[in-house]
């Protein structure tokens, strides 16, 4: 490689000057930095579990304990409809994508501010920082799947061809998390208020998502508006895929569209404000 480089008389020139307005994503450069993304995600995971007694078990415990609480509160006391399924597995199947999304959004929105020491000292495409925060959450999601397997066996829920929908729903959830995460990470750099806004909003957001209740419980005339929340369709589709039900296709469809649009807006906004980060972070 070195020999090849020196054989070329003059390496290609790169020119830096002030850029204005909307800036296109340099996909090739992003691809060149893919290893850094994995390293940062790996660092997040390693550091998170390094000094904990239970380690990665927390990835299961968090949704598992929530499941227990929700089952007691909403399943037993409030008798929320659960599509005729046992409430624990119904709510756990919704908590999986939701917990991933909530954690990914929370950690990626703080990620740029927490990486100030990197951003001010070394160059790389900044969008890698919130992306890595989302990627780190995927590992927790994978671990949390283990308990889902146990629950499926326990409640004798058979796997059906609907399961083939699952990868798409996971991708859709990742898209939604990246979209919201990039916007919030950029906003948090500029307005530190978002450090307080985000946890609170994410909490409320869960009520607008079919985690503890079934999507069918939402009145039909509200459903289209309801589906603008990308996590509405993703959670519904995720649960349908795992538990072998038919998802509410219109909701899944609108949510997918909404996630893709949000991703476009998120990346565009991030690119636009990215160049200011280092001067204000």
């Amino acid at each position, binding site marked *: 490689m070195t020999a090849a480089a020196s054989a070329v008389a003059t*390496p290609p020139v*790169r020119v*830096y000057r002030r850029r204005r307005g909307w800036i296109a994503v340099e996909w090739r450069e992003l691809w060149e930095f893919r290893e850094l993304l994995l*390293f940062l995600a790996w660092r997040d995971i390693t550091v998170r579990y390094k000094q904990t007694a239970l380690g990665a078990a927390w990835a299961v415990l968090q949704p598992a304990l929530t499941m227990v609480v929700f089952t007691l509160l909403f399943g037993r006391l409030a008798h929320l409809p659960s599509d005729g399924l046992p409430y624990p597995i119904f709510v756990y199947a919704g908590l999986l994508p939701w917990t991933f999304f909530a954690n990914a959004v929370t950690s990626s929105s703080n990620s740029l501010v927490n990486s100030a020491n990197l951003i001010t*000292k*070394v160059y790389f495409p900044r969008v890698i920082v919130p992306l890595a925060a989302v990627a780190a959450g995927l590992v927790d999601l994978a671990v949390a799947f283990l308990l889902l397997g146990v629950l499926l066996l326990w409640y004798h829920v058979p796997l059906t061809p609907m399961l083939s929908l699952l990868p798409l729903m996971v991708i859709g959830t990742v898209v939604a998390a990246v979209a919201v995460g990039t916007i919030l990470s950029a906003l948090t750099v*500029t307005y530190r208020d978002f450090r307080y806004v985000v946890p609170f909003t994410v909490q409320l957001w869960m009520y607008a998502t079919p985690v503890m209740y079934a999507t069918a419980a939402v009145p039909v005339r509200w459903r289209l508006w309801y589906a603008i929340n990308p996590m509405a369709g993703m959670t519904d589709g995720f649960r349908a895929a795992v538990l072998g039900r038919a998802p509410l296709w219109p909701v899944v469809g609108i949510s997918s569209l909404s996630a893709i649009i949000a991703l476009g807006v998120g990346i565009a906004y991030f690119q636009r404000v990215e160049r200011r980060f280092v*001067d*204000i972070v």
Partner: protein
Amino acid sequence: MTEPAIQVEHLSKAYTLGVRDRGYTTLREALTSTLAAPVRRLASLARGGLDGGSQPFLALDDVSFEIAPGESVGIIGRNGAGKSTILKMLSRITEPSSGTIAIRGRVASLLEVGTGFHPELTGRENVYLNGSLLGMRRAEIARKFDEIVAFSEVEAFLDTPVKRYSSGMYVRLAFAVAAHLEPEILIVDEVLAVGDAAFQQKCLGKMQDVGRGGRTVLFVSHNMAAITRLCPRTLLLRHGRLAFDGPALEGVHAYLADGVAPGGLEWELASVARRLDAYGERARVRALTLEPLDGRRSFRVGEPLRLRVTFDARAALPSAGIGIGIDDLYGNRLATFNSHERGVVTAVDRDASATIALAVPCPSLHAGRYSLSCAVTDGGQLLDFVPQAASFEIEPIDLETGQHVEPSPGAGPMALPCVWTVA
């Protein structure tokens, strides 16, 4: 004719003053500021100017230079002169406000030792993380791993979290990673200010190798000895402007004379910014005065070095003293004098000041230019320190005989008394 590796044209960087304090750090301010904008605009129109608001501060002001491939160039200047700003723009960390930078070749910049090092991760893990941040591929790090570890001398602790490392070990490991980058252009900011002397020598050696290997090196330092050793050429920055571009020694001369009236004998130091952090809170050096014999503006060879330092106490100082260091032009310390080590201290009340004088009867220095660093101590504890506070000249004239005495080149700074005999 080869194209320059780095070509900088009319480069400027403006910061809005106070951006950190009252910029759009909270949403409320952003909203009120947006709403208030039309009113403010009217108000400033009424005052007779369109942009009557915040004045931009030029951290870098219309700087142009070219660096040829394989050249080693030092960048020097006082704190706040724009050195770091230039490096950050060359490293793409921040964007120019105006002007252009053209770069030919792969750049690696080292603005800090151990960027991204995480205390909880082991040495091994941090090598991979840090290498990746500096732009190395995983395979490349794996290939050089043994070499990196050998250079760092921390083999035994590779699987220990770096939070348990001594600061020396930490720095050695971090520099070892950076030293094994293979860029065409290497940008280094003051990383040699850390680590023990032996390791600093090793780092300097490594950087010299990099330079000899035909790579372009850009090096910022306050260590004039390192600059003159590594770089044949220096750029001197002064208040964001390029004040000098040429041979290293001349640049260093100009740097040391910066902010100092030529031939001046009194240095006002109360407001000098190049103090070390946190110094100057309990006591502050106010002035340093040189006192050559017969009212001359410079010393002669063999003449006693006489000076006095006045300092202000901002707290009661029971046993205040003064420290003076003599450095050569390369920043090498030649001699240090501490009054408290000789029992010369004085009690100073709060908000009072005191003056302590020093005479070195036979300074034993060859003709040349030297710089003085100056400190205030209390009970031997350092309270204020102004590096390179002043500089003085020893003329090549013997004090006793009045004859011209030019030292032979490379003779070293000392003219120690001696007795020669033919045995």
